[in-house]
């Protein structure tokens, strides 16, 4: 009896090993997709890149496009290191190390100041926004709101949105009390959940659970950005090492095509031209 069970167990063991090997072989044996590229970087552009990739892959089913977040600095780094074929960056101006990369502006993007819908404040002067984000103006009542402290919500160091935003409103040093979140979506969720919060994110990512503030009496909308009256605007770059080739070139071409630009505009970004 003992012997037979032992035998059976050996068999199970062998079978387990076999299954493992088979799985490994199947994984390795499967050929790479005929073509695939990775985009990485700006979390502000990430959702749009994903949407564009989805559309592009629907038209070209044999192609794989992977979109990875991480922030603009990641976009520059991964394009330089080759971890991604295309880097995404949403900086006002590209840093020195990105000069080695080929860059193309694929869209422009307004940065919206957002608060909880229950917040009575509707407009901030640029100077007030600067004071709030620098940490010198700390109560909503000073800008016409309720008497409660302001919770400043910002992006992490290395974020293109943060770098652009700080440059645009003139913040030299962010308030040390600011909550820090690592993506546009998280900023949105934090502000949605907190009546005292104020944050900033890409205009295209604002939804109806948030209230956009006017800046210097100008609302953040596609029209105002194109007209040039809304001031918080930055470009979105796609970066490649050398001139884009093959699939990277084709995909960037698609984004710049009428179809691609329409998709971008439909989803709330401003076309490149």
């Amino acid at each position: 009896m003992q012997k037979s069970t032992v035998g059976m167990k050996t068999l199970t063991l062998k079978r387990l090993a076999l299954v493992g090997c088979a799985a490994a072989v199947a994984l390795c044996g499967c050929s790479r997709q005929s073509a695939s590229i990775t985009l990485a970087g700006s979390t502000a552009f990430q959702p749009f890149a994903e949407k564009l990739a989805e559309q592009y892959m629907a038209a070209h089913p044999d192609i794989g496009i992977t979109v990875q977040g991480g922030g603009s600095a990641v976009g520059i780094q991964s394009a330089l290191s080759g971890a991604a074929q295309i880097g995404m960056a949403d900086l006002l101006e590209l840093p020195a190390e990105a000069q080695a990369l080929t860059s193309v502006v694929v869209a422009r993007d307004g940065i919206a100041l957002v608060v909880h819908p229950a917040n009575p404040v509707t407009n901030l002067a640029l100077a007030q926004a600067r004071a709030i984000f620098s940490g010198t103006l700390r109560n909503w009542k000073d800008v016409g709101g309720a008497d409660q402290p302001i919770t400043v919500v910002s992006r992490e160091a290395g974020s293109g949105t943060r770098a652009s935003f700080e440059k645009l409103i003139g913040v030299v040093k962010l308030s040390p009390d600011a909550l820090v979140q690592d993506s546009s979506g998280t900023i949105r969720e934090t502000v949605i959940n907190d009546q005292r919060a104020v944050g900033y994110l890409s205009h295209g990512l604002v939804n109806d659970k948030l209230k956009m503030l006017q800046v210097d009496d100008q609302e953040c909308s596609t029209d105002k950005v194109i007209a040039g009256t809304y001031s918080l605007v930055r470009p979105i770059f796609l970066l490649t090492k050398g001139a884009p080739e093959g699939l990277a070139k084709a995909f960037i071409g698609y984004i710049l095509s009428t179809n691609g630009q329409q998709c971008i505009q439909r989803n709330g970004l401003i076309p490149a031209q």
Partner: protein
Amino acid sequence: MKARAEKLAQRILLVIALSAISSLILIALFIFKEGTPIMVKMGLRRFLFSSEWEPQAGLFGIYPMIVASLWVTLGAMLIGAPLGIAGAIFLNEFVPKTVLRIVKPAIELLAGIPSVVYGFIGVMVLAPLIRNHLGGPGLSILAAAVILGVMILPTVISISTDAIGAVPNSYREGALALGATRWQAVHMVILKAARSGIIASIILAMGRAIGETMAVIMVAGNTVKLPHSVLNSARTLTATIAFEMASATGRHREALFAIGVVLFVIIMLLNSFATVILRGRTTRA
């Protein structure tokens, strides 16, 4: 022929057996190689004890994060350890063994729930509670401590239960025969005998709390500032690595690796401590 095959098997197994330790060495080498230069350049004291963390300006002081990690971890221990140990005692000594046999696996099951789920519940349930009733931004040290305290419960209960269960029955019977109540037997005899196992469980849980990343990122608010109260938002060592690792270059990257070195050393110290305590127990037994 057979002997030769045996020899070969032994050699191969030896090489395999070195895989864990070589992975550890590889990881340590990498992290130390990348992380120590900046500590040397800046001076260890300035790196550890200055409060300015502004990577863009080239300022790397991790004191606020060390303090945040300590507060969060201590808070988690204050919540998790008493609850966990009380649970372990109660389940071992005051209820029938069948209850323990059902409840212990159920609690261990909770160790398997992804930390992001705990973190999300922290954001949705705990942070608003704190914000509305105690003040502050809600996403805070307190929220992180409570969530981590709950997360370490399975570790504490599981290891403490084993330690208490390993106390020979004769100890219990001896104490009871002398006329002690169950509680007297527990706190005078059993807890003393199981002490090292319980302490080890706390140390290991502490390691888990210091090392936890995702849940803390979600609930702690991540402000880089020396915290003044548990209602302040703060950023831990692990959160800083996770936040900035992908985008960091040059000195900034070195600084993140240096944080890795600090974490690595803390964990090593804790683990060595736990190992010594546990070994002390086995040699004595």
